């Protein structure tokens, strides 16, 4: 394993320490519960927003804490939902009289932890709602499955509810907006390589030099199918088609397009992918109104990318354009 790491067991806490040291004015790190929160949270005049899930998806979600986005993020260990207790303590720390909205990607472990925490916090008299995000089109949604996964599309939910909460919307309204954004957001991802969790020390799976995994999530697990590596144009077409056909997005729709890197793919390639996806969508008459290219929700060092579309209306466009201030500043 070739990583910047000391004891792999301390990978997550040492990362969070670095994050807090780099943002001394705006963030607070609470080691007991492995949590990052805004230094000024909770604020009585806004709904508090919390997102959790395993670590290894950075910048999601710990680097999305700040004005206009999350009030706190409580990440678990790499790819593991946080313990219930940590979520519960996080909720207590940011509890606002206007309530707390918990955002959770739809995975069994995360949902269990957040729902149990919600119950515990409500018993303490805190008003809490939980919204599950499930934008991944590669997973079939049926009563025999656990439903779609939440992947990179969670960024748009966080951004929209963050803006709404900042403007003073009440809990019901913030929840409505989050649910609406989630309902018009779809993602599909693929991996060129496997990733290596620090504690495991070796890649999660073996992928020959001429093969890829299509339909991956964000936990380094294999995808729906293994396929041959092909020119970017063809692979992007497969991603775009899966996403477009799912909602479906149709000619005349105005959308936000995100090309999200999974951690090991350089930004030059992501812009190349963006250009291909943009043109393929334009061919279908879909109008791209907002563009997002970079890393938003990763799988450690996995090379690969996902494509997300959000169908925009005036309300969503306005919320996405609102200012925010999170650790991911460039300058």
């Amino acid at each position, binding site marked *: 394993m070739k990583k910047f790491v000391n004891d792999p*067991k301390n990978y997550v806490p040492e990362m969070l320490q670095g994050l807090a040291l780099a943002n001394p004015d705006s963030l607070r790190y609470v080691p007991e519960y492995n949590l990052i929160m805004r230094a000024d949270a909770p604020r009585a005049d806004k709904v508090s927003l919390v997102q959790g899930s*395993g670590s290894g998806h950075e910048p999601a979600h710990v680097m999305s804490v700040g004005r206009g986005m999350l009030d706190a993020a409580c990440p*678990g*260990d*790499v*790819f*593991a*939902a*946080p*313990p*219930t*207790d*940590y979520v519960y303590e996080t909720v207590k720390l940011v509890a606002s009289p206007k309530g707390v909205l918990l955002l959770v990607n739809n*995975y*069994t*472990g995360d949902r*269990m*932890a957040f729902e*149990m925490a919600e119950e515990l916090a409500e018993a303490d008299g805190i008003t809490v709602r939980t919204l599950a995000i499930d934008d991944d089109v*590669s*997973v*079939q949604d049926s009563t*025999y*499955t*656990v439903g779609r*996964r939440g992947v990179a599309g969670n960024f748009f939910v966080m951004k929209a509810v963050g803006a709404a909460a900042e403007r003073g919307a009440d809990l019901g309204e913030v929840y409505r907006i989050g649910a609406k954004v989630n309902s018009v957001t779809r993602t599909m991802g693929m991996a060129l390589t496997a990733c290596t*969790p620090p*504690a*495991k020390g070796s890649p*999660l*799976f073996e992928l020959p030099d001429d093969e890829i995994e299509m339909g991956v*999530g964000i*936990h*380094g*697990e*294999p*995808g*729906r*199918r293994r396929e041959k590596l092909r020119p970017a144009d063809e692979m992007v077409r497969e991603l775009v088609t899966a996403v477009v056909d799912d909602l479906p997005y149709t000619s005349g729709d105005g959308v936000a397009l995100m090309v999200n890197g999974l951690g090991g793919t350089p930004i030059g390639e992501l812009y190349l992918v963006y250009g291909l996806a943009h043109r393929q969508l334009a061919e279908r008459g879909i109008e791209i109104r907002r563009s997002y290219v970079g890393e938003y929700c990763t799988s450690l060092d996995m090379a690969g990318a996902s494509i997300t579309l959000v169908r925009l209306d005036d309300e969503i466009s306005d919320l996405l354009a609102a200012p925010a201030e999170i650790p991911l500043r460039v300058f």
Partner: protein
Amino acid sequence: MSATSPTAGSESTGNSDLEFVVRTIAQTAVDNEREFGELDAVVGDGDFGYSLARGFEIVLADWDTFDRSSPSAFLKKVALVISKRVGGTSGPLWGTAFLRAAGAISDRAELDGTDAVAMLRAAAEGIKVRGRSDLGDKTLLDALIPMTDALEEEIRAVRTGGGAVADPVRLARVAASAARTAADATTPMLARRGRPSYTGERSIGSPDAGAVAIAVIAERIADEWARRT
């Protein structure tokens, strides 16, 4: 597996069967961190071994501080540590399992084979509810439930055969071998719960990590028990 005996280095363990079993579970989880992780990596995300090990490490570290006023109280403390400190899907599931097991023996001061069956049944029911899962979904339930069935059957058979008390070493061996058979039998199954379910058909062909963990733990208990007596 480590050569360390599960009770080594702990003077205050006492020698109740329950403590012996819990400590063996904890030590097995710690010793098999890598193996359990590899199993979860095939069609999952590889953290199962890590999650269990980090939690049971704390169970071992806090061992001497646990309330020992009754078997039920003791189990509740263990459940609390697991719920608090284990993340992933395993935290809530194993925490619930221990908590429900505690509930099944809340009025008991001494435990026997029938209590063991009751605890295992309660644990499995708790996991089903918490995980919205059932037998056949290719999870640890597919080892836990057949193992419990075999244990119950063996106790009944001993009773029917006129024996008053079943030999615990033999019971442990029967349970372990049922768990192993059942864990192996998860290989051809299609996962309908847990992360492997996302890979669809590709979940077929490898055993479920949780089910194998149950088998490995049960075997270790049987081995240690035989050595103990």
